[in-house]
């Protein structure tokens, strides 16, 4: 993967000047390359990684395993795209193994998610079955530990 993307994926807030220093190029070039990635849709957005457990939100997240019947034309894509359009669905993946789609669904309460599953998701044509698991606590998201402080045990000067 391009170094520039690795840097952004690690910290998208890094200034363009600093990124230019890290890559040994001019900052105008960094701007251009980022713009190009954005236009081509390689970069689709920038978000903060939150420790939501600290925020006391009215929010529950469910992981839903979905079995579907692939369509005659378009295979899994038709149903997967249709499911993905619901704003409640935060992430959707096609999986190998015992089920086909894995969905991350958010709602304000257990009841809200349950009603999404029973009223919106399950009745869709092609959905064979669903299995819903509610998340209880987040330990790590996007490679970031949520409950551990960084400690540096190193001495301040070493050879």
């Amino acid at each position, binding site marked *: 993967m391009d*170094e520039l993307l690795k840097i952004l994926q690690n910290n998208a807030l890094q200034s363009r000047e600093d990124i230019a220093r890290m890559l040994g190029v001019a900052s105008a070039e960094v701007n251009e390359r980022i713009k190009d990635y954005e236009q081509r849709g390689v970069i689709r957005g920038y978000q903060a990684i939150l420790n939501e457990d600290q925020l006391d939100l009215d929010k529950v997240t469910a992981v839903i395993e979905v079995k579907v019947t692939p369509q005659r034309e378009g295979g899994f894509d038709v149903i997967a795209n249709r499911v993905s359009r619901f704003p409640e669905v935060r992430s959707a993946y096609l999986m190998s193994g015992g089920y086909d789609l894995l969905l991350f669904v958010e709602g304000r309460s257990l009841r809200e998610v349950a009603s999404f599953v029973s009223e919106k998701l399950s009745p869709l044509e092609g959905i064979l079955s669903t299995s819903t698991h509610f998340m209880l606590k987040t330990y790590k998201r996007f490679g970031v530990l949520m409950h551990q402080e960084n400690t540096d045990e*190193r*001495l301040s000067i070493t050879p």
Partner: protein
Amino acid sequence: MRGSVSLRDRLNTTVRDIPRSGIRDFFDIVSTMRDVISLGIGEPDFDTPWHVRESTVFALERGATHYTSNYGYLELRRALANYVRKNFGAEYNPENEVLVTVGVSEALDLALRALLNPGDEVLYHEPCYVSYRATILFAQGIPLAVETKAENGFRLTRAMLEAKATPKTKVLMLNFPNNPTGAVMSRSDLEDIAAFARERDLIVITDEIYGELTYDSPHTSIASLPGMAERTIFLHGFSKAWAMTGFRLGYACGPAELVEAMMKIHQYTMLCASSLSQKAAIEALTRPEFDVTAMVDEYRRRRNFLVASFAEMGLESHRPLGAFYAFPSVAKFGIPARDFALKFLEQEKVAVVPGTAFGECGEGFVRCAYATSLDNIREAMARLQRFIGRL
């Protein structure tokens, strides 16, 4: 001082007369201060890879808590021989040509003690790691420092060695990528040095602890050059590439006769390296590429950042090509490197190490380690710019 017995007179004179490491000296000053950004730390800021730590706990549970072979676990020596062949291009027999040691520091001490008789001369290049001169002296050798220069990228040349070598010279010590300069040697640079070593019939001790950490071109080991393995002791360890400094695990590879001699000293002084550290090392070698590559990429970004920052503030620096050190010149400010470092520390709370800690010819330079987060580096560079603006 306790009572009236003067112990100073009873000390071994070599030990008595060797000064404490300049690093140690500087550490004592820094450690009294709070909230210092340190560019003085010569060890990775990455955590030891989790799979290595996790497997060390497992090894403890499984009871790997006993003496091992003096040479180290055979399983580890096999993995090491394999790793060195693949990554450094030199072949060693794990049965008798690989010795696991307590860090490279022990391996270096063993190699010198195994080779030197009183009065034998050892060529080494400065600026260099803080222990080299002392270790040669402890082994009753005569240290011959060869000064490397910034204008030459701190590389070593045959001419420099020829100017210093005498018929009593027995050993040549190398350390590339280099601490403190970040210098590396290309294959053709090393070929000249190797030819010199062969002609003068020297034994080469090569400390390649930073061998994985090169940023612009791949590393070449002198041990891989024709006719060199038979006269070279290759030293390496797990501190830098796997961020395992506290595990204290190194190793030496070389001709069986030499390794056997080193093993004798090791046997009587250390017995063996820590069994748990050895288990950790076995795990580290089972999937090394991923961890190391990610670290190298991050160090490269920081190196580039430092080089660009020095250039922007008009600070002269050769381009460091390996290890995680930059060695910019502060000579133009007209004060000794130590004073520069002390003032910088006092006024801006940033620690860099004066070049003189690495040999007299380090005067006029400071070592900036970039084994710290980019946020720290950015802030340190902003303070450095402010500081030199006032000088």
